[in-house]
């Protein structure tokens, strides 16, 4: 972290060297790098990520306050991306080569082709402001993270890319599943198309989609950097970008560490979910 140029305590004023020394001592930055590192690791193990150099709050507190918001946003957008993505993928696969397919895949392509900061700015303006001005009804709030109507647009902006990924994946996987023998078996039983899709195809087709959930969580986390800024949401992503811009390296390292840990955790959850969906995966890895 010490590679970051600049000094965390620099304000615009020149601080007398004496004062600076005092501050370095206060935050333990006067010790040798190695000692600092050991101390940091020791503290981390105790759940102490240090104190923000910019606003002197405990990094743990910052994460504790900002992350739930990001998590809320992330979960909403993942759920949104997942449901809509799956539906689009299913529609596309079932109507393969027909208009439904084309339409669904068009949405998906737009999703992967338009960066979230453009989508975010556009929907804020059109769905947030213009819609309100046209109808006089506050359908969506423009900013903040308070009422339900403030949580739709950012979640959508954040979800758009992931939704596209999911729908494309779901389509491929669904096509694959639909060509499987057990679908033929189901058809031979006299089940209707709808029953086949929902009872047999979807659960199997979801599995490859579930495996990308881990990377998608990462994508959503980083996507939040932009979206939280645009919609003025007090989440960790917005905070992180600020800290990067102001060299607040306790927060940078703390947050990075936290993001890493969270992703590990998310991947674990994904594994568990995968195990729940696919009975062939034994979580315990135990006896056979």
């Amino acid at each position, binding site marked *: 972290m010490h590679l970051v140029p600049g000094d965390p305590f620099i304000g615009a004023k020149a601080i007398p060297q004496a004062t600076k020394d005092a501050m370095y001592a206060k935050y333990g930055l006067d010790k040798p790098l190695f000692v600092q590192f050991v101390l940091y690791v020791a503290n981390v193990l105790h759940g102490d990520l240090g104190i923000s150099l910019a606003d002197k709050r405990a990094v743990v507190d910052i994460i504790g306050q900002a992350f739930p918001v990001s998590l809320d946003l992330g979960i909403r957008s993942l759920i949104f991306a997942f449901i809509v993505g799956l539906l689009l993928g299913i529609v596309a696969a079932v109507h393969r080569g027909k208009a439904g397919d084309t339409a669904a895949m068009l949405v998906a392509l737009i999703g992967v082709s*338009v960066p979230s*900061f453009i989508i975010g700015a556009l929907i804020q303006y059109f769905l947030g402001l213009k819609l309100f001005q046209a109808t006089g009804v506050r359908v969506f709030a423009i900013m903040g993270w308070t009422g339900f109507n403030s949580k739709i647009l950012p979640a959508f902006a954040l979800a758009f890319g992931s939704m596209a990924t999911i729908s494309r994946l779901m389509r491929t996987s669904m096509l694959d599943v639909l060509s499987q023998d057990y679908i033929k078996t189901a058809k031979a039983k006299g089940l209707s198309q709808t029953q086949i899709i929902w009872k047999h195809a979807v659960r199997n087709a979801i599995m490859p989609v579930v495996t990308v959930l881990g990377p998608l969580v990462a994508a959503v986390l980083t996507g939040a950097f932009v979206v939280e800024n645009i919609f003025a949401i007090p989440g960790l992503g917005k905070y992180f970008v600020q800290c990067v811009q102001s060299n607040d390296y306790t927060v940078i390292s703390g947050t990075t560490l936290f993001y890493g840990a969270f992703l*590990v955790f998310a991947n674990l959850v994904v594994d568990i979910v995968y195990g729940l969906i696919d009975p062939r995966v034994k979580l315990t890895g135990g006896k056979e």
Partner: protein
Amino acid sequence: MAKKTQPAAPAEVLQYDPKGHIDTAAFERIGTDTADMEAIARPSISFWKDAFNRVRRSPTAVICTILLVILIIGAIFIPFFSTFSISQQNVAFSNKPPMSVDSLTNGVHIFGTDALGRDIWVRTWAGARVSLTVAFAVAIIDCLVGVIYGGVSGYFGGAVDNVMMRIVEIISGIPYLIIVMLLMIVMDRGLGSIIIAYSITGWTGMARLVRGQVMSLKEQEFLIAAQAMGAKPRRIIGRHLVPNILSVIIVNVTLDIPNIIFTEAFLSMLGLGIAPPNSSWGILANDGIAVFQQYPFELVVPALFICVTMLSFNLLGDQLRDAFDPKLRR
């Protein structure tokens, strides 16, 4: 066996009446014809040619390729031949809509002017240069590093693989944007830094992919056959593995490029992109967003370029994937 030239012969076209009398001559025995028996249905054509034909037959792929070629050529040449330079300003003539005629030079601003009265047309093409250079450079680096790393890891397997993959997991455990951002503050602004910053994390995806491919190829019988024939690792890698994963790599690269373009745009969005007066699509889009309520075209132009490029690469990648898919062959 009949050849392709003959249409299907339905039973109705009878020359002989089965119920009636048939001349004995018709029952002359001719026996088997070896040449005919061993005839090969498919024409002789190499894998790459076949894939290329497939791509050529898909209108989507052709259109995407044409678009990309136009973009590349435009990016190379248009900045040279434009009436305006990328930094030339006419601040009194700022934010003018497309096709405005400049108040000083009387040149036409095809895409209008930006907040400093610079020509968006030339800045867009110059931006294409930056964005595409970054995209291709990173793609090539990722490719090289990823293929070598993934190849080594997958080929040798065992403990080597274990260690190498743990490293990859650690690197990719942190969202790459975080790493790229951190690197960008450490390094000086510029094309080189962006390329390096992205390359440092970007190769992991390719490494994983290549490793997976190599692992599955290793189990393939034709590789086992080569091993059984006493082929040395170099031969196996060079003659069998590489040609067989090349298509997967190409597809992956085309699908990776949009990601890189997006990253560049994102960095510009955070002010971590390349320095003015140079332009990139990210910078243009970011400037455009700031004023899109007043001058929408300033966002529309770069956004359109970004989207079309991403779209083209994505679609082309999809088409290539189909063209190279071994399941669609046989």
